[in-house]
């Protein structure tokens, strides 16, 4: 299983091991971690929640999109759910490709797509309250009720 939602802490090496390939000349890893300060506001901890079966499908879709664009790429993604403390790992993305440039680009593509189409939400707990964070891309969220064709396919 290259695409997972995990209630347990993510073991980075296990994600990397899934994309090891004799064809690969490069493996890039993206490690998303919980940040303490956001625009001057102090986060105490986060709660991540997912619609797990659909989140798994959408992570697989991202893997398929990467395969279309970079046919030699191997991708693995694990996203954490539950309560995360500052510096904890929220997501690990590993991509291997024959050459380094593709590995960087495909990995970047994966994290941007996660922020668009994967049903995972984070609730920020601050010193003075809590809020579900949405609309990180700072665009109008889907006026037609779902992502536009370009959002899903591109």
């Amino acid at each position, binding site marked *: 299983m290259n695409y997972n939602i995990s209630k347990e802490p993510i073991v980075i090496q296990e994600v990397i091991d899934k994309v090891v390939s004799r064809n690969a000349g490069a493996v890039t890893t993206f490690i998303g971690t919980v940040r303490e300060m956001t625009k001057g506001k102090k986060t105490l901890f986060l709660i991540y929640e997912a619609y797990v079966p659909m989140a798994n499908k959408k992570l697989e879709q991202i893997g398929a999109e990467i395969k279309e664009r970079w046919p030699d790429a191997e991708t693995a993604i694990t996203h954490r759910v539950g309560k995360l403390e500052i510096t904890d790992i929220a997501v690990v993305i590993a991509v291997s490709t024959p050459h380094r440039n593709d590995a960087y680009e495909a990995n970047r593509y994966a994290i941007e797509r996660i922020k668009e189409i994967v049903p*995972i939400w984070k*609730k920020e707990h601050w010193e003075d309250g809590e809020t579900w964070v*949405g609309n990180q891309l700072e665009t109008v*969220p*889907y006026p037609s009720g*779902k992502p536009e064709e370009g959002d899903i396919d591109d």
Partner: protein
Amino acid sequence: MINVLLFAQLKDELGKETVSIEGNGMSVAQLKGKMKVDFQLEGLETVMTAVNEEFADDDTILSDGDTVAFIPPVSGG
């Protein structure tokens, strides 16, 4: 019956994560309207909808046994 799943702020607003709604033959838009009236649930206009785990338009017609998930703007990563 339609099985409706709620997440994030919608779940907090309603106080539960699933409800069953009599909605055979309704469109997604009609279901949103009914949820708004029956539960005073606000903000459904700006959320995405998934029917049976795939993104769906507001004019998608629902059948008994469908699972509808309302998906607020996502914030993974």
